[in-house]
């Protein structure tokens, strides 16, 4: 795997390979010494052209646990407005020694463009591009769901998919890269996905996507899901007439106390609440739902580091062979690149 650009073009085999590798990484994170020598001497650049402290520090922690050198490059606004093009920026970073570029970008398609441009030879990891995709977020969500399913079955998560799981994704689907990446990945892994949102926040053509679509969150919850994923809703959407008011949004599409109660009665016994964070308490999620033991937010954060370790390891180890790498011994033997 040279790059990770999207989940839409991620095969089931590659998705399982990342998740299984993440399980190994997770075991490392549980140890007293949380460090592997796997990427010693390699340089990972976090190129963040849009604010996201959470994602950046997660990638940074992941790279450091694999002993990679980390360079953080952050900037805001368009590269054009700053006078330096993306091409010049990434070529500079590669000249500094980048082996992988983890890029958060305000523009949809920027990661794919970078990987396909011929400007650089580094691996590209998409850390979120515009309203297109956020593949590592979906992978960490899938890892969280898979562990959840394994606990329910009393089995080990490795090698398993999400067959039979019912996941409801709620909120601003239209503008959400998290929703897109999750839809493609979760369905690849065999889950059934339902999108619930006001019609104004559903993408055009959503009826062609491999999912159920509903305007009624109550119906979606009453159908007994295993997980409800709440998306962050930006209140400025209200001013663009996507919905009349925050109060009306909350009444219809918020995970209120009443809907939490409905989930407790109608959902799976161990149904979980997920949120990519940061949460807007009182808007898309009530305080009780946010603080519920069903909320996996912190587990998602921990899994994020494991998934990102796996991704960095796989794109930089350059191995094309299937299966999970025998991580520690091979990494220790691997010659410096």
């Amino acid at each position: 795997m040279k790059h990770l650009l999207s989940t839409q073009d991620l095969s089931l085999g590659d998705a399982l390979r990342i998740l299984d590798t993440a399980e190994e990484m997770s075991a490392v994170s549980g140890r007293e010494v949380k460090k592997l020598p796997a990427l010693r001497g390699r340089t990972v650049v976090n190129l963040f052209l849009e604010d996201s402290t959470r994602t950046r520090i997660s990638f940074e922690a992941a790279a450091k646990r694999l002993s990679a050198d980390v360079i953080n490059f952050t900037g805001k606004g368009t590269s054009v407005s700053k006078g330096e093009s993306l091409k010049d920026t990434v070529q500079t970073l590669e000249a500094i020694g980048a082996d992988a570029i983890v890029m958060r970008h305000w523009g949809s398609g920027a990661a794919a463009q970078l990987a396909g441009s011929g400007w650089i030879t580094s691996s590209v990891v998409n850390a979120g591009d515009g309203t297109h995709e956020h593949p590592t977020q979906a992978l960490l969500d899938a890892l969280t769901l898979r562990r959840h399913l394994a606990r329910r079955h009393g089995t080990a998560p490795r090698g398993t998919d999400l067959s039979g799981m019912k996941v409801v994704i709620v909120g601003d689907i239209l503008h959400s890269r998290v929703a897109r990446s999750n839809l493609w990945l979760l369905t690849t892994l065999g889950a059934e996905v339902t999108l619930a949102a006001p019609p104004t926040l559903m993408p055009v053509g959503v009826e062609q996507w491999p999912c159920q679509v509903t305007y009624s969150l109550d119906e979606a919850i009453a159908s007994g899901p295993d997980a409800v994923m709440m998306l962050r809703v930006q209140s400025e959407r209200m001013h663009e007439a996507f919905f009349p008011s925050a109060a009306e949004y909350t009444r219809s599409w918020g995970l209120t106390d009443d809907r939490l109660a409905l989930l407790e009665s109608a959902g799976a016994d161990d149904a979980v609440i997920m949120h990519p964070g940061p949460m807007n308490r009182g808007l898309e999620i009530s305080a009780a739902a946010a603080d519920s033991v069903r909320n996996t937010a912190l587990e998602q954060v921990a899994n994020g580091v494991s998934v990102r370790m796996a991704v960095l390891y796989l794109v930089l180890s350059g191995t094309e062979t299937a299966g999970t790498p025998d991580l520690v011994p091979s990494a220790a033997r691997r010659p410096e690149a």
Partner: protein
Amino acid sequence: MSPTAPRYLISGGTLPDGTTSDMLIEDGLLAAVGPEARSRAEAGDGPLETVDASGRIVLPGLVDLHTHLREPGREDAETVETGTRAAAMGGFTSVHAMANSTPVADSAGVVEQVWQLGREAGWCDVHPVGAVTVGLAGERLAELGAMAASRAEVRVFSDDGMCVADPVLMRRALEYVKAFDGVVAQHAQEPRLTEGAQMNEGELSSVLGLSGWPAVAEEAIIARDVLLAQHVGSRLHVCHVSTAGSVEIIRWAKERGIEVTAEATPHHLLLTEELVRSYDPVFKVNPPLRREADVMALREGLADGTIDTVGTDHAPHTAETKECEWTVAAMGMTGLETALPVVQHALVDTGLMDWAGVSRILSSTPARIARLTDQGRISAAGVFETGAPANVTVYDPNVRRTVDPATHATRSRNSPYRGMELPGQVTDVFNHGHPVVRDRALATPRTH
């Protein structure tokens, strides 16, 4: 042209009406077509050059209603000189230079400057398009009468790049240009429905996370404007029609006798939104590439006369405005040097149109829309009018070439056909009897 200027015998070419015939150019005019061309050539005085056109198509010089020459203001992307070289190489003997230059062509001074630059360049006729509103701002009418009365004799007015969205302003413009038989060419794009728009709106834009440019934003403006044109009894021209729904509305309007003409670009006749999956900004254009069904509807529209003409919307851009993220890249594609090959590929080789049809959509009809009397002088059946100015393009439809933008005469390299194989090549072009292209290469400009 002096009497001792060379005469040209275009020999053995296939004319748009399907006949094989000789053609004599003398004193800048089409002196004879048919058997008398050769006898008259041999009988006449002065030097005679023969252009072997056997196996080639002889077309009336092409007329483009929609060209961005970028001068004044963006001479790094194109100049009148480089743009008209590209036009000549593409077989065009007349181009209409859109008004969105810097400064905007919204005054007699600017249109005369562009017109003068075109004359000095000498590669093809340059007719400036006048802006409808001052600075393309859509707020108040530009001095349309002054531009019409200028040496540039402007007859086509457009805020292209921007839509004349205000219905009152559009109504007034349609009415006002009747005074000098002008036409308003509308860039049909409802601005509020297309804020931040990046590509055709549909399932694909949703997958790619790019803001959609919905078909309705074009169709709503066209519907409004044909009704306005009917109401005030004016001529309306619709630029770069891109959707199947627009074709339907224009068909409806024409059935009711509304004086509307419409144009489609070469790229909308061939390319679809699927290309956007690459996020390569060379495919970013306004209006955006649409669906396969839209491409087919435009081809049908041209074949049945609903769409009147192919306008290139040649939009050169510098490398730095295209070598960047999709969402901030400039919109537009070069097109002058590939227009005729694309038309052959999309309309002739598919059996939708013959070469008389090509003469109609690329020469006589656009000349009529722009009220040019020195271009497009050919009958609907494809019979050249003798005695008319000798604007002639000789075209070899039998070669196939891979498009290499580096070899193009335009200053910019943003051709969406890069690497594609297309049929045909312009071999010779006569602008008012002067050979500006000979043997597939630029010759010399015409001097005034």
